[in-house]
């Protein structure tokens, strides 16, 4: 990577209008459709459900020359009073953490092996890693139904070779949700790990070997600590969206896989309780805030080219 030259000031020679536009268009778009909507979700989470369109009450009122703001905390007290919601939050976090760990355990060795291949071979290998994530996510989840079903390919194969007598019940259990999440998110783990490992300076490892380190010692004391930022980025890319995952638990997990994304969906689409769905979203955002900020900082450094 080229260092920032002394000509840096020359880059300010944008015509003012162009510069403002280049920053302004994406800024305004994301402010309007990504940031401000969160404030509206926050507002509606303090409203009450109503039979109207839109189906919630207004939280501000102007009656008898008095301007009143009516904050209804009922949605939040309901979230904490009804154990169903608390259990759903905790189980989402557990499922996300376990699947992230599994993804790391599968993804790290893959990224490591690929990063040490010849440049042309690793380009092809990375294309092969990324390719499935370009094909439909929905279809990749769907593919597992035919495999994990009690009459599916896995059970028939296992019974065919006499390993089991009774079909294993995997589909529509939490185990199937774990498999689905690990499968769908694996490329998002391998990608940042590979990007990090490929830049590893191998002279460090050679020096360690020269000093008598065993391969596993060199790995634990050099490769692993140096790949920390890749591990963090990969884990965040998997864990944060996995907490709010809806499609995978819905299609593979069955009724026992309680996740908060499904609860939000149910409140919105089945109960048509928009204020409660908003409160569910706000609490989820608060839980995810710190991981998102960690991810933001790391990613921003990456985008600006300030690599650690």
């Amino acid at each position, binding site marked *: 990577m*080229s260092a920032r*030259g002394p000509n840096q000031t*020359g*880059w300010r020679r*944008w015509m003012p209008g*162009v510069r403002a*536009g*280049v*920053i302004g268009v*994406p800024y305004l*778009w994301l402010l309007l*459709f*990504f940031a401000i909507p969160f404030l*509206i*979700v926050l507002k*509606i989470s303090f409203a009450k459900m109503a039979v109207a369109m839109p189906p919630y009450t207004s939280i501000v009122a102007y009656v008898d020359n008095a301007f009143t703001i009516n904050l209804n905390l009922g949605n939040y007290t309901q979230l904490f009073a009804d154990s169903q919601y608390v259990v759903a939050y905790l189980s989402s976090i557990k499922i996300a953490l376990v699947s992230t760990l599994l993804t790391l355990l599968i993804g790290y*060795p*893959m990224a490591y*092996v690929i990063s040490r*291949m010849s440049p042309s*071979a690793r380009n092809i290998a990375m*294309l*092969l*890693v990324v*390719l499935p994530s*370009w*094909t439909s996510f*929905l*279809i*990749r989840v*769907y*593919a597992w139904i*035919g495999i994990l*079903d009690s*009459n599916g*390919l896995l059970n*028939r194969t296992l019974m065919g070779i006499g390993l089991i007598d009774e079909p294993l019940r995997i589909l529509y259990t939490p185990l199937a949700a774990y498999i689905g999440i690990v*499968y769908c998110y*694996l490329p998002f783990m391998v990608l940042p790990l590979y990007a990090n490992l490929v830049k590893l*300076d*191998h002279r460090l490892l050679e020096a360690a070997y020269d000093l008598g380190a065993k391969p596993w010692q060199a790995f634990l004391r050099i490769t692993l600590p140096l790949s920390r930022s890749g591990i963090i980025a990969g884990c965040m890319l998997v864990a*944060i*969206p996995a*907490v*709010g*995952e*809806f*499609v995978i638990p819905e299609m593979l997990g069955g009724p026992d896989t309680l996740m908060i994304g499904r609860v*939000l*969906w149910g409140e*919105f689409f089945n109960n048509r309780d928009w204020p409660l769905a*908003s409160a569910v*979203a706000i609490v989820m955002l608060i839980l995810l805030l710190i991981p*998102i900020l960690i991810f*933001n900082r790391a*990613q*921003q450094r990456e*985008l*600006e*080219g300030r690599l650690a």
Partner: protein
Amino acid sequence: MSMPRRTSWLGWGVLLLGFAFLYLPILLLMLYSFNSSRLATVWAGFSTKWYGELFRDRQLLQAAWVSLKIAFWTATASMVIGTMAAMAMTRFKRFPSKTTFGALVTAPLVMPEVIIGLSILLMLVSMGGLFGLPSKGVVAIWIAHVTFTISFVTVVVSSRLQELDRSLEEAAMDLGANRLKVFFLITLPIIAPALMSGWLLAFTLSLDDVVIASFVAGPSSTTLPMKIFASVRMGVSPKINALASLLVLAVSLVAVLGWWISARADKRRQREMQLAQQENG
């Protein structure tokens, strides 16, 4: 830089298992689209009848057409806006509230889809046609898709912008070209492959989304993933296998083609750079 070594047996084993895990489900899915039995897991002989049924399903084709149109316009808008964001992040050293800007650009990468879907819907509904924005329907889906795909384009394009040798841009500016001219004559041709990958990525993300689209679609518009999702909830259907196989095939072809084109362009540029250096050397 890492020195390539010969991959060990253990290494090959890891890769083989990893790729088997990634590809076996998709290959099995494609294989069973040629199954003559309705039971998607019991092989009963070769048949292409599900492909025939697929093309007679007008509703499904209609939804596919809607999805393709949304994906095309999403990818196009996202490519433009995402490239602007990438230029802002990599080329402008600092500007007011750059940290906020960075947060806005990176957060959609990890934000759970249910939250994006819900928040954009509530935004559009409570703005209620304020700026002539529709609260539901195809245009609403387009707005939502552009919003969550911009960040992916920005990541792809900015990694390319960082690799780019800035001395080329600086030389052009020393010769008196203004920034806009430098961007269109020097920068844009070099980052074009990244723009293409960004466009394709946004296209596939949009074509794939079921959660966000469900929130903002409204009763009148249905996209292909929404159709697939509804039919998969009813159980496995070989027709969906056939559709999936066609999608996988199309995406793989485009991805491999895109990769090949950009690899070839890379090689040619490297050769030209070497030649230029030799001539100057």
